[in-house]
């Protein structure tokens, strides 16, 4: 933490020191970690030289957890405790999962997000994802021989707020400092664009295992600007497997398979799908638990027919994204293909036909997202300042609130560049009304019931007035991660009530703590020790930074009382440091940060105005 050590915005406080940061592609099927080494983005392999970590987590009765290949090998044998494609469940309730056919888990419907019952207890998709992230973090810390400053985690561009929040929670649970959530197609564009020094408008078509994204980006010198994005967060290679699976059931007159057989046939289906990318036909054989044998031939032709509407379904979001960007097919200079499912020839053909050009596949579609994320992580960690580039991304879905009659009032439209904020005024509809329910939703539909519900909260303490007299100002702020914060303020009478909510799908700090406590004691001790060490380092750095800042600018920017307040707060932090209680230190750091906000802003103004050519800027009252 480098509070107040500002020279110029965008410059690291200690530019000479390389800060370890990684990009993580947390995929439905496979996950990867990459970093920038000697100026080049590279994927970090495991000890066996494998880059891709299958996103599979197996829970064992003894409390151990297997992640990756070893878990994947057990998926047919132990389907209930071996969780694959957990990303599909992130930020989702049971009612959101349309198709549980062929999904062998024991779901538990929990408020906000579904959970899975395993031999090791009930697990949330956030915990499952955190297991994958922990393995990648360990891989990176080993390879880089040091602790990570932070990570950029990628998410499908079409992920809504609940799914993003869940991803961020998973990263926190894995002990990662999230520098940014980055949209997957945007990450791909960074890797691709910087590699090819491209200019013009590009489409990134990303079809992975469980999600589909399309983003339209304008690349100009040093700027990546997302013009529009669209997609389907429940469409991917898994669905192609499903088609083959259903075909198998029908062809062999099978019904009501047990979990093991279901998983076995799905695995075979996926293998034959991948086989058909290279070959005109493939055979599917399996020995079911009841002793029956399956032996079927599948031709590429038949597979294309049974999956053609899936391919067609990807083109609808493509058309919408183009329209939102105000562009026509002929405006697109190149199409970048991302995700394992874009290897399927019928997908390549459909995309080529639609865009009337051969898609670009010169970067490995499995790795390009992680490579781009690493480049961004390197910048965010403060390792680069010269030859900088700028990334301007958008939110994928409109944000709004429920109004009378169950209708949605859009407050921030989709494809708005982030960060962004909008405020809108509402009023009471009854005389003497002292409370108001605020229901935050995300989606494009008119009816609230067709949109995703993100949060509900009450604004209380509105002074009684006649209907329509109160002025309730609702502010939506979306940050650079695409995450929403909502606040409501009653301004009509000068009496203020104020509340800030996090969407209900997000885990609270107590829930995260609970989950951390669930993990075994040993790991917990490590964590506590680590937390304490981190807080101590932060505290010492902060004290030093504030001392320096006071010496440099204290007299100029603060009056006597202001200086005294900061000194007192600093003494509080010094006292907390003696306690070896990381929570206490954290609170004291927060307190000192709070006391120095105005000072920090004044210093920032000073430095920004310096950077911008010496003009006097911000009047602090206006901030």
């Amino acid at each position, binding site marked *: 933490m480098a509070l107040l050590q500002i020279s110029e915005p965008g410059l690291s406080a200690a530019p000479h020191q390389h800060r370890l940061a990684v990009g993580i592609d947390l995929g439905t099927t496979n996950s990867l970690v990459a970093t920038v080494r000697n100026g080049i983005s590279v994927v970090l392999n495991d000890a066996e030289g494998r880059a891709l970590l299958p996103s599979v987590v197996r829970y064992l009765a003894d409390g151990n957890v297997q992640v990756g290949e070893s878990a994947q090998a057990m998926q047919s044998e132990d389907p209930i405790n071996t969780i694959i494609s957990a990303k599909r469940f992130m930020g989702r309730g049971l009612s959101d999962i349309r198709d549980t056919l062929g999904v062998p888990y024991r779901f538990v419907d929990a408020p906000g997000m579904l959970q899975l019952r395993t031999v090791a207890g009930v697990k949330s998709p956030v915990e499952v994802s955190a297991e994958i992230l922990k393995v990648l973090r360990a891989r990176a810390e080993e390879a880089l021989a040091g602790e990570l400053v932070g990570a950029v985690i990628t998410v499908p561009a079409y992920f809504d707020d609940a799914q993003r929040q869940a991803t961020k929670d998973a990263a926190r649970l894995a002990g990662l400092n999230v520098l940014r959530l980055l949209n997957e197609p945007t990450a791909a564009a960074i890797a691709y664009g910087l590699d090819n020094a491209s200019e013009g408008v590009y489409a990134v078509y990303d079809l992975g295992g469980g999600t589909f994204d399309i983003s339209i980006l304008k690349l100009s010198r040093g700027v990546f600007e997302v013009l529009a994005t669209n997609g389907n967060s429940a469409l991917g290679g898994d669905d192609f497997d499903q088609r083959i699976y259903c075909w198998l059931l029908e062809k062999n007159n099978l019904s009501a398979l047990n979990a093991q057989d279901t998983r076995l046939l799905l695995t075979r289906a996926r293998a034959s799908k991948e086989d058909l990318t290279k070959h005109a036909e493939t055979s599917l054989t399996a020995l079911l638990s009841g002793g029956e044998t399956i032996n079927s031939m599948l031709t590429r032709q038949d597979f294309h027919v049974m999956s053609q509407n899936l391919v067609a379904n990807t083109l609808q979001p493509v058309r919408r994204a183009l329209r939102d960007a105000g562009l026509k097919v002929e405006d697109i200079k190149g199409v970048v293909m991302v995700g394992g499912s874009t290897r399927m020839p019928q997908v390549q053909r459909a995309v080529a036909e639609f865009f009337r050009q051969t898609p670009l596949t010169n970067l490995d579609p499995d790795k390009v997202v992680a490579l781009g994320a690493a480049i961004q992580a390197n910048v965010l960690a403060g390792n680069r300042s010269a030859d*900088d580039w700028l990334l301007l991304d958008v939110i994928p879905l409109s944000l709004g609130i429920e109004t009378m009659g169950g209708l949605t009032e859009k407050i921030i439209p989709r494809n708005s560049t982030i960060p962004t904020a909008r405020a809108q005024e509402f009023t009471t509809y009854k005389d003497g009304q002292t409370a108001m329910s605020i229901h935050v939703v995300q989606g494009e539909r008119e009816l609230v019931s067709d949109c995703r519900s993100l949060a509900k909260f009450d604004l209380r303490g509105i002074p009684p007035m006649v209907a329509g007299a109160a002025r309730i100002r609702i502010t939506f702020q979306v940050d650079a991660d695409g995450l929403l914060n909502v606040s409501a303020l009653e301004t009509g009478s000068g009496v203020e009530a104020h509340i800030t909510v996090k969407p209900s799908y997000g885990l609270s700090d107590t829930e995260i703590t609970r989950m951390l406590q669930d993990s075994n004691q040993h790991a917990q001790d490590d964590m506590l020790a680590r937390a304490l060490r981190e807080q101590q380092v932060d505290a010492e750095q902060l004290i030093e930074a504030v001392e320096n800042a006071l010496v440099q600018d204290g007299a100029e920017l603060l009056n006597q009382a202001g200086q005294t307040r900061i000194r007192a707060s600093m003494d509080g932090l010094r006292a907390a440091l003696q306690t070896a209680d990381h929570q206490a230190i954290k609170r004291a750091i927060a307190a000192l940060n709070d006391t120095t906000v105005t000072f920090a802003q004044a210093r920032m103004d000073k430095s920004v105005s310096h950077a911008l050519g010496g003009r006097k800027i911000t*009047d602090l009252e206006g901030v």
Partner: protein
Amino acid sequence: MPVSFNFQQNFFQLFGLPEHFRLDNAQLDQQYHALQTQVHPDKFAHLSEAERRMSMQMATRTNEAYQTLHEPVRRARYLLGLRGVDTQEETNTAMPMDFLIEQMEWREAVEEARQSGDVVELEKLETRLRHEVQLLQELLAVKIDDEHSYAAAAEGVRKLKFLEKLAEEIVSAFDTMDN
């Protein structure tokens, strides 16, 4: 190129642009990028909480300013606001009769194309609408920048708002055809 960040400045001042409706889009883009390069949260990710918060506020305002100036209707509304003129889009519904009749005809044509799933016709309508919008915008430029007749300009904004709604209907018609 001196850019400056001041929360008190209006959107034109923020980008160092003249307060005109006619706008050099390339210049706006360039100024926007230059300013975001200074204030965007990506440049502050490794700094303290207070600095990150400040950056988010500056970048948010920069985006708002850009969106407002980039879209002609919003730009006109904003500029008229700076001149103390309210465009009365919610309250003033007294539109010229021939304009309203024209709107009805447009709506019927869009609805017809939607019902019959006629993509080609819808595309034609879209092209025609874009042309109309262009003409109205040129008129706005004359009213605001040359003649300073703001009341007439406010009516122009109200008309454009109608056409915007129409454009939205065309988009939603395209969307239903996709399904």
